[in-house]
């Protein structure tokens, strides 16, 4: 059961298995998993990077929709923040997609350097944060919004974010954050949750449960708009997206059940190990290209 993707034979069962593994991780940690899946698709299946990015964004729509409905039910998050970030993120997706097209035109080597470099940085960032949490013996105190770095920037106009207890935050900074998140999605094909969560918690001082709920609407809009942009450029393979989604839907259920059986520390360590394995794979691929 193989399909032809830009001249490359891709096995659908293997693709579904890859989706299953990423889905287990996504279900265990409540993440989209795009930053694991997107770099692995060109390395494992040898599909062109642009198709891997477009297809990965496409299958993330399903995951983002489920997460959005779940968090909406819990009433977590700050909808004002989502509203301001949304405009910036749509612009960012367009910018990211254009940068990717420029990179593709400038040659495969430069494209690999930028994309693999970007994935490696994201994976390293996530691994360091995860390990830091796993080996912290004492509970980390919740950040204080007034003392958080991005909450202190004075750039008017300001907006209050009462749902998360932030009396004043700069609207242009929030919109720029949305722009960066969108650019990351358009360029690398990741949802961006892995980068947004620490920025909200440590940058703005959001309580963790509200940080997880904030940005889901933006992520849903970003991956949907990113998929549209990449689909117009012919970078989305629906057969691949459906095979991955079939595996990841099942994997997410398994992952959620596994979470209850493992301790929080063990979960974090396993997650960090997986991140480091993916990071090593991406680094080896990058070095081989040069």
């Amino acid at each position: 059961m193989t399909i032809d993707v830009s001249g490359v034979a891709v096995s659908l069962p293997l693709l579904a298995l890859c989706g299953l593994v990423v889905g287990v991780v996504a279900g265990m940690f409540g993440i989209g998993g795009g930053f694991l899946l997107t770099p692995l698709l060109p390395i494992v299946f040898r599909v062109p990077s642009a198709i891997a990015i477009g297809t990965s964004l496409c299958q993330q729509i399903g995951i983002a929709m489920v997460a959005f409905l779940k968090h909406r039910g819990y009433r977590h998050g700050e909808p004002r923040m989502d509203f301001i970030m949304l405009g910036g993120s749509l612009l960012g997706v367009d910018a990211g997609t254009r940068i990717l097209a420029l990179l593709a035109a400038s040659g495969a080597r430069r494209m690999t350097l930028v994309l693999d470099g970007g994935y490696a940085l994201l994976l390293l960032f996530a691994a360091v944060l995860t390990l830091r949490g796993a080996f912290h013996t004492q509970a980390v105190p919740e950040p204080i919004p007034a003392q958080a770095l991005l909450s202190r920037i004075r750039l008017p106009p300001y907006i209050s974010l009462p749902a998360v207890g932030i009396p004043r935050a700069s609207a242009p900074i929030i919109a720029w954050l949305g722009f960066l998140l969108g650019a990351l999605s358009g360029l690398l094909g990741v949802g961006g949750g892995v980068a947004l969560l620490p920025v909200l918690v440590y940058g703005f001082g959001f309580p963790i449960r509200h940080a997880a709920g904030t940005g889901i609407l933006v992520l849903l809009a970003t991956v949907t708009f990113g998929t549209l942009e990449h689909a117009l450029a012919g970078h989305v393979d629906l057969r691949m997206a459906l095979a991955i989604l079939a595996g990841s839907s099942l994997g997410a259920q398994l992952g959620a059940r596994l979470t209850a059986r493992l301790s929080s520390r063990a979960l974090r360590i396993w997650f960090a190990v997986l991140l480091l394995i993916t990071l090593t794979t991406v680094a080896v691929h990058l070095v081989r290209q040069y």
Partner: protein
Amino acid sequence: VRALYVIGCLLLPPAWGALSVVLLRAIDKRWPRKPPPEAKRPPDLEYYL
């Protein structure tokens, strides 16, 4: 054209930020948020949600 696009990318997000503040204030004015019954909700949950 590319330079204009870059300038647009730098200026449009904060412009949207400013516009959204005006819009959110107008929404708050038109549909004022009702405070919740205190006993039924934890104190850190926002009332307009």
